[in-house]
């Protein structure tokens, strides 16, 4: 017999609201640990000064419950919907948008969403971007990820020739970070998606940013090595914290990969500033 679990829109709204409120004011412990390690490794004096200001900022934001950055982001969500869930009391997508709207209103966050051509602000930071997949089970996992525009603008998608291989991937990632230079507020976290289709590589790159900092790819030794090597190359570029010069240009490189067409080698690079904000909940 099939059992179905009911989850109310009210619970979804409240969860989304809470996750965005927390994400925008609390820098994760993984990032703080990584920054601590970075300060001790940074040889450039102005680079250390920049990293220390980031640490001080995170402390102020958490204590005062104010946004870490004025760019409180476009609201991106990853949803894993259990196939045995039945949504009651309304429409799922509307509930997500309502939760986002409430968080940006109640948190006094900046509304950073506009019509692409007229540039007229939508006024409530919606619509949110929702990536969802249906999975086994009777729960909903929601990841809230406010994504800043400055680092997003430095992101890229390449359709490489299969012959370009691992070297081509490496060169594309390093070149993207080098060209971005000081613009995306280094030190950055580099999300890389290899394979899939054009849009799937971009989604993989964004998902890669959700992995806790300091963790390498969970099971593929090729990717573990590639992550380490690319990070090493990026940190030889000299860009440094805030672009003022130094050895800590990136805190981490995270790669996710999946099979692709025999004709293709899609590679997407999603750049994220140090304020890698994401919170998750299971309801």
């Amino acid at each position: 017999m099939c059992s179905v679990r009911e989850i109310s829109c009210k619970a979804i709204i409240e969860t989304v609201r809470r996750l965005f409120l927390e994400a925008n004011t609390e820098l994760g412990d993984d990032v703080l640990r990584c920054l601590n390690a970075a300060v001790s490794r940074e040889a450039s004096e102005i680079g250390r000064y920049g990293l220390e200001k980031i640490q001080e900022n995170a402390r102020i934001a958490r204590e005062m419950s104010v946004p870490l950055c004025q760019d409180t982001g476009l609201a991106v969500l990853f949803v894993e919907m259990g196939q045995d869930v039945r949504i009651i009391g309304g429409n799922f997508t509307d509930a997500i948008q309502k939760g986002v709207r409430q968080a940006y209103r109640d948190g006094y966050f900046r509304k950073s969403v506009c019509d692409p051509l007229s540039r007229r602000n939508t006024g409530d930071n919606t619509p949110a971007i929702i990536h969802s997949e249906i999975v086994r089970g009777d729960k909903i996992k929601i990841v809230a990820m406010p994504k800043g525009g400055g680092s997003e603008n430095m992101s890229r998608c390449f359709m490489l020739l299969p012959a370009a291989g691992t070297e081509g991937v490496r060169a594309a990632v390093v070149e993207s970070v080098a060209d971005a230079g000081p613009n995306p507020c280094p030190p950055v976290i580099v999300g890389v998606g290899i394979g899939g289709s054009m849009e799937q590589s971009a989604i993989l790159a964004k998902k890669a940013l959700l992995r806790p900092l300091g963790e390498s790819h969970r099971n593929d030794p090729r990717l573990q090595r590639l992550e380490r090597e690319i990070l090493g190359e990026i940190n030889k570029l000299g860009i440094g914290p805030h672009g003022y010069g130094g050895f800590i240009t990136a805190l981490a490189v995270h790669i996710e990969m999946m099979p692709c067409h025999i004709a293709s080698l899609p590679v997407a690079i999603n750049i994220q500033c140090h304020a890698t904000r994401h919170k998750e909940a299971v309801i």
Partner: protein
Amino acid sequence: MNKPINIHTPLTDEICEALTVGDIVLLTGDVITGRDTAHRRLSDAVLAGDPLPVTLAGATLFYAAPTPARPGQVIGSIGPTTSSRMDRYTPMLIERGLRGMIGKGKRSAEVRDSMKRYKAIYFGAMGGVAALLAGCVRKAEVVAYADLGPEAMMHLEVVKFPLVVVNDVRGGDLYEDAAARYRR
């Protein structure tokens, strides 16, 4: 690292000429904020020969849009946005008296040339430390384009706002110098 230099607005020839790439500056005084859409409107007004809603002569422009202030706060979190998006409008504003710019990231060759010609300075503010920077803002009020919401132009009174000189009046560039120094 150099000792911080205290400067006050308005930026004069003397102040601008004394600054060098890499100087740490604590800026006190008046700045106006303006970013993407405000720049487009300023440019449209200049091209149409219409009066501008802000005074550019001697002004310092901060590429920023803060989070809304909570009750009792002067301002929400505030920090720089990427300056290069304003590059296409900047020489036109510098020609009309703009002296200081605050943002983050690289500027175009055209902007740097016009900074040299008119003795303007581009300061970098640290990105992503907006809760900290908000503490340097004493007063904030919308002065133009209120309909743009977060992108409205504001007048800010700042005290010891921490900046770094990125481009000086001699054509120097901190980002190029710094990366070359630490590249391996």
